[in-house]
């Protein structure tokens, strides 16, 4: 089991890479009620403000976040375009989003993603995002993708962190 929880301050993101099933799970708390966190995931205008890596431009071609809907967006980085698309399998307001996710550079690959929002009371929410792929190679490639996709400015800071630990 490989889990990292860095609790330097307030809500640090936790990652869990399951040893038995090819999935990655992200857990994070927010100082906002589930309604707002849900909105930030379903309103395309809000989504572009946070989803893409900082060094990339994000363009949303379509975004119909409801059960049976679909989406496509494009990240542009150094003049290169990276397209992503998928379907919304189940959308339950303020609680749950189940969707598929495909990177168009590898169109036969698909991840099943489940986003669960838990109301913690006092206007706080715990988000649990699980990505399931069909092989450990796929999962590990998924983790390794952080190595080269849009992390330019994050690299230096990260290396400092890694060197410090």
């Amino acid at each position, binding site marked *: 089991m490989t889990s*990292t929880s860095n609790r330097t301050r307030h809500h640090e993101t936790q*990652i869990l890479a399951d*040893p038995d099933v090819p999935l990655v799970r992200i857990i*994070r708390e927010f100082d*906002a009620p589930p309604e707002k966190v849900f909105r*930030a995931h379903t309103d395309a205008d809000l989504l572009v403000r946070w989803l893409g*890596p900082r060094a990339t431009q994000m363009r949303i071609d379509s975004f119909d976040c409801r059960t049976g809907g679909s989406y496509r967006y494009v990240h542009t980085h150094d003049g290169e375009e990276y397209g992503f698309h998928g379907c919304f399998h189940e959308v339950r307001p303020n609680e749950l989003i189940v969707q598929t996710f495909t990177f168009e550079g590898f169109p036969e690959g698909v991840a099943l993603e489940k986003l669960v929002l838990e109301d913690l009371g006092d206007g706080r929410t715990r988000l649990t995002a699980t990505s399931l792929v069909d092989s450990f190679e796929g999962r590990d*490639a*998924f983790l*390794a993708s952080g190595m080269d996709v849009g992390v330019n400015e994050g690299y230096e800071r990260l290396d400092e962190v890694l060197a410090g630990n």
Partner: protein
Amino acid sequence: MAADPLSRVFSALADPTRRDIVARLAVGDATVNELAAPYDVTVQAVSKHLKVLEDAGLVSRSREAQRRPVHLEANVFDLMTKWIERYRRQAEERYRRLDDVLRSLPDRAVPHPPADPPPQEGTSS
């Protein structure tokens, strides 16, 4: 196939028995016989798994020692830890931006999520 080192590591770790072997070697070096003991497979089968792990650079075997214990190459774990840490880092940066977005949202926002606007065809009364 699987020519580059990263792909070799991926496919070597794709097998549950090999992941288990790696996990056990993380505790300490072990001989092939010791490694084979808990499994319902032959020593030969375990040797095959070790060959794959060795080719991927995950483990090494000393040529000299008579027992030829299998040793886990620790830098591979560093690699995995690095991937995970980078991934976590990216997610954290993303969610800090989400923190900002959430802070900017008015408290009494839309009473229902931004669904499709209901088609207002004809009005009743």
